């Protein structure tokens, strides 16, 4: 099936005017599949880390949201061991007027503002609530260990 015009346009704009701190490059053999990197926001425990994600645009995109998953290990109450993300705009609050760039910005913002009251990784959220400083310290260590650019 031909690639919808919308996906072509979004890809072009992502290449021509990249969002600072975010990159998304489509695979040559599958233009619906993107390799994504997101820089950890400054003044967060993820600062200095570069996180890899995979992004896939399903057939009925933009009527359904893109599928996104962290590939880099990350210690965050709303991201689980498999890299799945708990974010409302990726699920019930998706709108077809949202785009790849806006969604990736939302994910970057989620790194800056973890929400342990709506957890996906229960153990991490528990840790976050009981001892926030220690949890942040662990997040920092994981960033150093797994998210450092080679």
């Amino acid at each position, binding site marked *: *099936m031909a690639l*919808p*015009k*919308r996906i072509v*346009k*979004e890809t072009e704009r992502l290449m021509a*005017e*990249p*969002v*600072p701190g975010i990159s998304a490059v489509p695979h040559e053999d599958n233009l619906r599949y993107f390799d994504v990197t997101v820089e950890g926001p400054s003044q967060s425990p993820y600062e200095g880390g570069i996180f890899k994600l995979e992004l896939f645009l399903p057939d009925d995109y*933009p*009527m359904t949201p893109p599928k996104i998953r962290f590939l880099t290990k990350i210690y965050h109450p709303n991201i689980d061991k498999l890299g799945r993300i708990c974010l409302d705009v990726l699920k019930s*609050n998706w*709108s*077809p*007027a*949202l785009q790849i760039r806006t969604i990736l910005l939302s994910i970057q913002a989620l790194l800056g503002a973890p929400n342990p009251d709506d957890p996906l990784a229960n153990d991490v959220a528990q840790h976050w609530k009981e001892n926030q400083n220690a949890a942040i310290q662990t997040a920092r260590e994981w960033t150093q260990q797994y998210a450092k650019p080679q």
Partner: protein
Amino acid sequence: MKFGKEYQDALIKGEFPAQWVHSAISYGQLKKCIKKVREELQEIGLDADTLAHLLRACSIDEAQVAPHSAEQSFQYRFSPEIHAKTTPRQDSSEESDSPEIFQGFRPKLLFAVDEESGEPVDAYLSPDTKEYLHQLAVSQRLTDIRITELPGPSIPVEDGHASPQNGAEQTASPQIRMVEVPLSSDGIFFKRLRAELSGLERLQMEEKERLSADIRTMGKTLSKSTEPARTLSTHKSDLSVWREIFLLYMESEIFFSSHELDHGFRSPKQVQDKLESFSAELKRRDIESRLKRKDSKIALNQFLALNLDLFKNLRFQDIEYKAMRKILKKFDKRTALGISSKLIPSISPSVLSQGLARTICTEVSNELVTLVPQVSDYLCPVCMSLAWRPVRLSCHHVFCIRCLIVMQRNHDDHCPMCREPVVMQADSDNIDETMAKFLKKYFPEEVKAKHEDNVRQAGIDEYGEEFYSDKCAIM
């Protein structure tokens, strides 16, 4: 290379009109003025080193005690406008030929001396200088009528009757008063600089007028040549070619960038590169020969000339701004009177700012670019194609009919833009006929393409993927 030489070269090589070069800042002359100021200061033992030392001393003092305290041993500032206007000046020979606006612009060098004895308070000064200041204090006190101290804030106040030349000021502390060291060459320097800056400001205003007039003329030509075709056979319209030109122009972002990464004004070098690649791209796409109307071709050349003109203005401003900063810095370096930090912020916003580029670019987009509607302003936010046929929901957001049908089929009731539950209630009454008419008139080709696409998608929905494939298929 020295800046003075560099500056001269830039003015000569810039191919600027003679009138501009004539109004340019006379860097060499101003440099001579600085030399005179320096000599004058040296005569009374106040060379740059001494003043720099005093300046350091008072900034340390200020950190320890309240500002405006008696510890400030000297100040260099500009007298308020009112004095120069109401009181006669002694050096009237200079004053007579200067225009009205420079009257208030007279710098003053003030030194703190002991109220009783007239002895300078700063111990760092050499005996000769101290003696000089002492003499000055005594003689100035004799000519003063009366020094009054107004109640209220501790800002130094001056008696309205005292002429600025002899003006002695009293600070909050009763033991200290300020005595003015008479200097004449610094006045000449600032008067000259000021006059040149206002000359430049006038020039800039004139240029703005001229460019605006050009834009309006071009706007008239353009509105004729881009008028949508009424009947296909008799009327030629260059609407779509002009759309391409302006789209390319806006994407080039020649004068400033709106990108997230390099937001703001571009340097003259960047502007030049952008302009060159813009005209190269126009050539590559063979735009000029694709324009069918004669007046379109004229308008295109006008448009290019206008941009070159604006660029020339920007380059000139850039050079002049640099010259102004350099000469004020030089003044500080030679005299240590610390003036550039005070003066540059007050001058830059009005003169030699990038205001010209901003105004002209706004006018270009208001007067010209809006004559040619761009597709990007009429896209459906879901499929990012032209919103044909346009459906306006009760929340006023517009989508193409195709995307709306898909949303209704999925029972997505929420408007993609505002999440109002209004999608399901939309029906054929929601088609925006006024907008449909407008789109058909201004985007005939795009409407046709989108219409065909809508039909194809509907066919695929009904009969499957093979419906519109190129291959022959048995259904």
